């Protein structure tokens, strides 16, 4: 029976080539956009090297300071994080805490060549939170940070640019006029791993100015590596309590008397930044619902289009439907047949969408638009795409099939199905 259904499905698709093209175009383009978006989100939020422990990492990425006459959102400053967050490393639930700056562009000149690199200032704990692949040497240590030793870990591309790809550990490099000794070389980290990405990593204490040490607002972030996810609630509670304490000792009390923020997963932090008024709370479930609603709306248009096309196709096939009913097809069997046809159509569209998405992602990777991008359609995204295609097929096939299956055979045979 399935063979007969598939035979008919292929024939029907070939019979009305324009309809088929429109359907496939709608499905494949929709899936293309969804898959590329999913690949981008997966790239940012899912645990990939070096952020393989993101499932047990919380961070304080943004804070909001508010007072009766002023308010402002910013990244936290080193002084604030060092005083109020770093001591949380002493909690039983916390394995370690790292404080670092976002990567910043710096210039270097090698043999008259101008080299632009990203440089990230961080601490020795950073290398315990994130799991880098070292090609040479190793990370710098907490002691190096403490003593402001001018050491650096560089990535593969920087080794290539500065040393022509030759072994770099022990050699010196000058970045923005500062001289560092290379202690380790790691594999390139994609740009969209916002927290760990850079070309060069150096101890924060090697900064030319030490003014950052007292700032409450600045360009630093802290991550807390929990021993286990079960420790998250305790960590969140502790940070909230510390914020209340910190409020009493704020340096700009004439301006601000409240400080908001929290220990968030990356997704929670995104929800806090996007949806919360003054970063007071985070509602990741709202962000998820918004994303899913957006996706559903995005899928709705091609689905309605398919429903419409399917309904008009039924008009053409009423004779066949009448014949099948007359010779013993039950409503269930007919619904099964039409849904299978539609699923075949959507799976073909899905396959085209997958190939297009793979091509687009490969194009983005090759374009250099996003430094060191490694967008890929992994198995999880492939399964998501397949699921979406099936959802499409079922949704757009069931309603027309149901309408049609309710017809009396004589109506269908006489070609007056609706």
């Amino acid at each position: 029976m399935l063979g007969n259904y598939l035979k008919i499905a292929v024939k029907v698709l070939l019979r009305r080539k324009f309809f088929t093209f429109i359907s496939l175009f709608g499905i494949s383009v929709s899936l293309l956009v969804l898959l590329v978006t999913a690949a981008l989100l997966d790239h940012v939020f899912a645990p990939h090297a070096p952020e393989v422990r993101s499932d047990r990492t919380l961070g304080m990425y943004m804070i909001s300071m508010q007072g009766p006459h002023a308010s402002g959102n910013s990244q936290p400053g080193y002084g604030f994080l060092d005083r109020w967050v770093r001591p949380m490393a002493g909690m039983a639930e916390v394995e370690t805490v790292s404080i670092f700056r976002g990567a910043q562009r710096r210039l270097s000149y090698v043999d008259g060549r101008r080299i632009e690199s990203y440089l990230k200032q961080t601490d020795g704990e950073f290398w315990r939170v994130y799991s880098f692949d070292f090609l040479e040497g190793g990370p710098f240590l907490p002691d190096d940070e403490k003593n402001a030793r001018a050491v650096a870990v560089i990535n593969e591309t920087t080794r290539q640019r500065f040393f022509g790809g030759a072994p770099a550990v022990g050699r010196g490099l000058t970045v923005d006029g500062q001289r560092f000794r290379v202690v380790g070389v790691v594999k390139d980290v994609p740009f969209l791993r916002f927290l760990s990405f850079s070309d060069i990593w150096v101890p924060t204490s090697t900064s030319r100015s030490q003014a950052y040490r007292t700032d409450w607002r600045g360009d630093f972030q802290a991550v807390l590596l929990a021993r286990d996810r079960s420790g998250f609630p305790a960590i969140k509670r502790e940070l909230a309590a510390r914020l209340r304490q910190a409020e009493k000792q704020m340096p700009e009390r004439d301006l601000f008397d409240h400080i908001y923020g929290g220990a968030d997963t990356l997704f929670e932090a995104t929800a806090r930044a996007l949806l919360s008024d003054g970063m007071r709370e985070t509602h990741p479930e709202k962000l998820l619902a918004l994303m899913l609603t957006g996706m559903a709306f995005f899928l709705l248009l091609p689905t309605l289009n398919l429903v419409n096309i399917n309904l008009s196709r039924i008009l053409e096939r009423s004779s066949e439907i009448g014949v099948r009913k007359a010779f013993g097809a039950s409503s269930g069997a007919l619904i099964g047949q039409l849904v299978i046809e539609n699923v075949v159509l959507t799976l073909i569209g899905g396959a085209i969408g997958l190939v297009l998405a793979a091509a687009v992602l490969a194009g983005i990777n090759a374009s250099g638009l996003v430094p060191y991008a490694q967008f890929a359609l992994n198995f999880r995204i492939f399964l998501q795409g397949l699921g979406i295609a099936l959802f499409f097929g079922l949704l757009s096939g069931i309603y027309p099939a149901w309408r049609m299956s309710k017809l009396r055979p004589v109506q269908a045979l006489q070609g007056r199905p609706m």
Partner: protein
Amino acid sequence: MIRLDKVSKMYRTERIETTALDNINFAVEPGEFISIMGPSGCGKSTLLNLMGLLDEPTSGQVAVDGRTAERLSDREMARLRNERIGFVFQQFHLISDLSVLDNVEIPLLYRRMSGRERSQAALAALDRVGLSSRTRHFPSQLSGGQQQRVAIARAVVGRPKVLLADEPTGNLDSQMGDEIMDILESLNREEGTTIVMVTHDPRLAERTHRTVRLFDGRQVQ
């Protein structure tokens, strides 16, 4: 075999109500070959559709093999049509996308049978109507007479007890019409298939056991 009890059929639109059949009482016994005659629009096809459970009466009851249609679920009705009744239509109603063999197999798709059993039964039915050499052809590659023979093969492939034929020769010339009639007669005579045939042609009606005449939705004989 088939019993109609006080069956009426009305078609309603917003403005008018048309009576297609009015209080028909009628029984088809096993082994009979019956023709239904009457002028155009008198309700012949409507009657045949009701007998084949392709349509529902406005009032009255239709029973096939002692089972009253209005008490049957969609699935039971489908099963009854599949196992007990075969249809031949004036317009053939073959599925143009399927080969002759696939068309004939259709009633068997809705039974528990292997693919091999299905194709064997379909080949035997095509042999019965003299078309075993055309199994891979598509309907559009056949003449009208050949298409109607395929339709008969499809109607009898599941060995139904009763064959309902709605003007099976209406779209054919007289020679092809006679060939079709020969096949129907032999099915009735040799295999005991009960046949009810709607026709305009008195010459064909004479070849059946008895004739039911309709006029303006009423049975007049």
